[in-house]
């Protein structure tokens, strides 16, 4: 960032310039600036939903593209996610108040034996930003926890994440148990994590492998739309 940019007074920017600046600030992981910009847009009577989708989610989509293309790396994405989170903390209660559209409910967690939750947390945040209700089971989940939560929450989607080659086969155990219980087709099952690939996702019987958080959001939206069309 140049000195000139550092001196920017966000409140003096028009809406379009401010949103573009938010994309830059998200990209640079500038959490305080994001929080300030969110407050400014609220003051200008933007709806919380528009701020979330047009500024924060869109900004993170750009970050996601550059991560996919190898321009940004994990630390930068984490900083950007931290900035988005700061904006979402402000918006979340307002979104509940204003009744933002809900696209569906997702149970998500890392599989048994796996404590690596960075990817899972990014997906949860982006899904929440896109309008999904998230039931986050955290790390190291046995099959019973997933299934109990799916039933209890009457969820639409199961999201499973694994970072390790040694833990990713556990996803198949979860899906096979769902089949045994005759509930597999009641849910959309999405899987993700660094060592996974599309072939693995198909082989274990998931509905889709999602290579990153943005793909997870788009995939979930597409499956939910299909589900509604069938209903």
């Amino acid at each position: 960032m140049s000195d000139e940019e550092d001196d920017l007074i966000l409140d003096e920017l028009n809406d379009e310039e401010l949103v573009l600046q938010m994309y830059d600030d998200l990209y640079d992981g500038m959490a305080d600036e994001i929080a300030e910009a969110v407050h400014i847009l609220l003051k200008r009577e933007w709806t919380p939903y528009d701020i979330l989708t047009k500024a924060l989610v869109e900004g993170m989509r750009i970050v996601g593209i550059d991560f996919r293309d190898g321009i940004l790396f994990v630390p930068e994405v984490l900083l950007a996610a931290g900035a988005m989170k700061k904006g979402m903390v402000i918006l979340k209660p307002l979104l509940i108040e204003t009744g933002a559209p809900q696209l569906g409910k997702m149970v998500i967690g890392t599989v048994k034996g796996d404590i690596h939750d960075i990817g899972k947390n990014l997906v949860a945040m982006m899904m929440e930003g896109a309008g999904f209700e998230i039931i986050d089971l955290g790390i190291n989940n046995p099959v019973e926890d997933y299934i109990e939560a799916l039933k209890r929450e009457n969820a639409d989607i199961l999201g499973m994440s694994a970072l390790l080659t040694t833990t990713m086969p556990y996803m198949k155990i979860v899906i096979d148990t769902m089949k045994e219980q005759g509930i597999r087709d009641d849910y959309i099952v999405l899987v993700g994590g660094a060592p996974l690939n599309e072939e693995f996702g198909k082989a274990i019987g998931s509905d889709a492998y999602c290579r990153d958080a943005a793909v997870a959001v788009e995939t979930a939206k597409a499956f939910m739309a299909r589900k509604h069309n069938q209903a």
Partner: protein
Amino acid sequence: MQTLIIACGALAREVLALIKLNSWQHIELICLPADLHLRPEKIPDAVEAAVEGARGKYERIFVAYADCGTGGLLAARCEKLGVEMISGPHCYSFFEGNAIFEARGEVTSFYLTDFLARQFEAFVWKPMGLDKHPELLELYFGNYEKLVYLAQTEDEGLTAAAKDAAAQLGIEFERRFTGYGDLETALKP
């Protein structure tokens, strides 16, 4: 005709030590950059290029990689290329012995080998951005409880470095001497 070992750069010292220890004069070694581990999806292509470059010049080509985060893709590529590789998920596992490592089932341990103890700053701390953003430490390591240093050699300097790394990460420290574990068995002619 010689045997060629195509190894991960993180195993260079260990493979050279085993060659010396066993007087394996028929073995040649080439190493691929250790930082491929930062983008494991690139490992199969890099291995294939090295194998194809060496075809016809050696009686046997051996790939000194385990799965290493490729999710089975490296094993599939090696099978296609007709070359052997090390079994197991990663070097932590085969140094300790794949069977022992699996039986331990440690979920909340972070592992260092001699290579990683020596290169902790370059291969862990800096690539994770912790040198510039220490506030990310909790996000990366918040779920870990212990750093386990799997030592291939008796080296007080490396033990001290591994202990420092554990302190830097704010987790407990344990050292286990493994020697070369399954690596030696895998490389044996």
